[in-house]
């Protein structure tokens, strides 16, 4: 037997051993996470009982879950409704645009399951899952959900202040959102749960509307339009940039090269950009 062959064999043996080890792994937390997904999604529960590969569970972990009587998973008939309620509270207009039947499909998504495994806030996972599904309305309500929660510390030499989110959404999104929200009245959950179908009017999808969403000192959230170059610059800075990069971006967006530095200083003075203490990364 050649040396190559024997090395290959021993590699294969060690891979088998790794696979065996990982199939014998039992982390109670992973079992609980999968169980939560099973409680929300009968199709996922059936997948766990089935034979298709599920990378998130080892053989041992899956064996424990296969023993659960599927009827017992239905012991709380209001579980899904409560979770949907929590989402509609923060995403009333997105839920109207999609219809509650569509909102419920979130709980059968890999995004929902990943959010549980990664220990995230459900409302934020939902916002990510929305993506373009509810057009600009989803982006707007996702930004609001982000600003309701603890804000990250600013990073880099220059950053978009964490209490702001700059958005570029289809033209008319803000007016559409306000008007639908007003018509949803004081109890959107009740109204939408009965309706289930998508809202009669479609969310805007053409053109561009630059928006700034701001969390005020008192925790309330302010929505407004802003100039497109400003919103683009704030979005560019989001997550932390070097000052030179932000200045170059300002010039690309139409600032006079000689005045870019001054412009950035003004934005910092106005609180629309922030310069974190040096050393933040």
């Amino acid at each position, binding site marked *: 037997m050649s040396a190559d062959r024997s090395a290959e064999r021993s590699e294969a043996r060690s891979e088998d051993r790794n696979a065996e080890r990982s199939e014998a792994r039992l982390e*109670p937390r992973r079992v609980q996470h999968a169980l939560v997904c099973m409680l929300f999604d009968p199709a996922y529960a059936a997948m766990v009982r089935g034979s298709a590969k599920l990378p998130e569970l080892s053989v041992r972990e899956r064996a424990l879950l296969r*023993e659960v*009587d599927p009827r*017992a998973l239905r012991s709380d008939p209001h579980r899904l409704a409560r979770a949907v309620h*929590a989402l509609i509270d923060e995403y009333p207009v997105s839920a109207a645009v999609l219809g509650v039947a569509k909102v419920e499909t979130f709980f059968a998504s890999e995004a929902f399951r990943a959010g*549980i495994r990664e220990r995230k806030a459900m*409302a934020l996972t939902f916002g990510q899952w929305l993506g373009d599904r509810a057009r600009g309305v989803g982006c707007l309500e996702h930004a609001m959900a982000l600003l309701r929660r603890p804000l990250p510390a600013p990073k880099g030499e220059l950053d978009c202040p964490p209490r702001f989110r700059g958005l570029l959404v289809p033209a008319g999104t803000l007016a559409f959102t306000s008007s639908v929200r007003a018509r949803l009245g004081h109890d959107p959950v009740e109204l939408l749960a009965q309706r289930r179908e998508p809202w009669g009017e479609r969310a805007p999808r053409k053109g561009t509307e630059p928006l700034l969403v701001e969390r005020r000192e008192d925790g309330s959230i302010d929505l407004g339009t802003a100039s497109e170059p400003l919103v683009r610059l704030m979005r560019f800075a989001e997550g932390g940039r070097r000052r030179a990069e932000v200045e170059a971006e300002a010039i690309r967006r139409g600032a006079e090269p000689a005045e870019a530095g001054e412009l950035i200083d003004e934005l910092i003075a106005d609180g629309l950009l922030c310069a974190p203490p040096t050393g933040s990364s």
Partner: protein
Amino acid sequence: MPTFLERSAALPHLGLGISTEYGARRSPGALDPRALRREHPGLGGFLEVGVEIERGLDADARAWVADGGPTTYHFLDVNLDEPEDLDPGWLAAVRGTVDELRPAWLCGDAGLWHFGTRDRGQMLLLPPVLVPESVAPMAAGLVALRQATGHEVLPENPPGAFFVGPMHVLELFAAVAEAADTGLLLDCAHLAMFQRSRGLAFDAGFDALPWERVIELHVAGGSERAIEGLPVVDDDHGIEVLPDTWAIFEGALARAGNLRAVVVECERNPLPDVLPLFRRVASAWGVDAR
């Protein structure tokens, strides 16, 4: 550090008490804990306050404390086996609430109280996975919470329509108590749910439990129903206590030599309706039911 059994000598004898949680009294006709204490001091010996930090304490809990009434702090919002869940912000708020309540100890169901972060719409309560691997992370959380608050933390066996894993729930809690060197809160109604779900006798697993660590018992009503033919018990804290819950309670009284407190969980029922239940618990335990 002294062992739990040595430390337990300093735990007060609270007697018979009642539970409450934020806004419990908004239910029509719900029990007024202070009225119970005024009219039947032997029954309202202490108030077990269910605390979700996000909601804080309600006016009833505050009024009880202002009267000088003894309390215990029952957490409703921590996954003990997740170190990330004992974050500095939550712990600081717990310490603040402990300062307000001045509880005799902390306690609460050792299970999954929420999925993901502690956030809206993510509350539930699942029992732990009944495997030896669950012991160490849960014990670590208990020790961390005890150190952070300076109070004993008694894990309670949670309810469940089903339980995952081959161990007996008492076997798991025995191992957790030994590993964390802590006391235990045995919920008799929750244990009845477990025994029924496994088709076991009311006292199955009793031999596994270090009874000298059992400091507190819970008694509560439950109602039977079936899901497509599967019999389950709803832990509804009503006034109808299942016969197996009584049998567990009486068996526990006979064994738990270090018992300090018994809670009758019936916070959403009117006083006249719950008095017979209190009297039966009091007489079984041999305490003054006036």
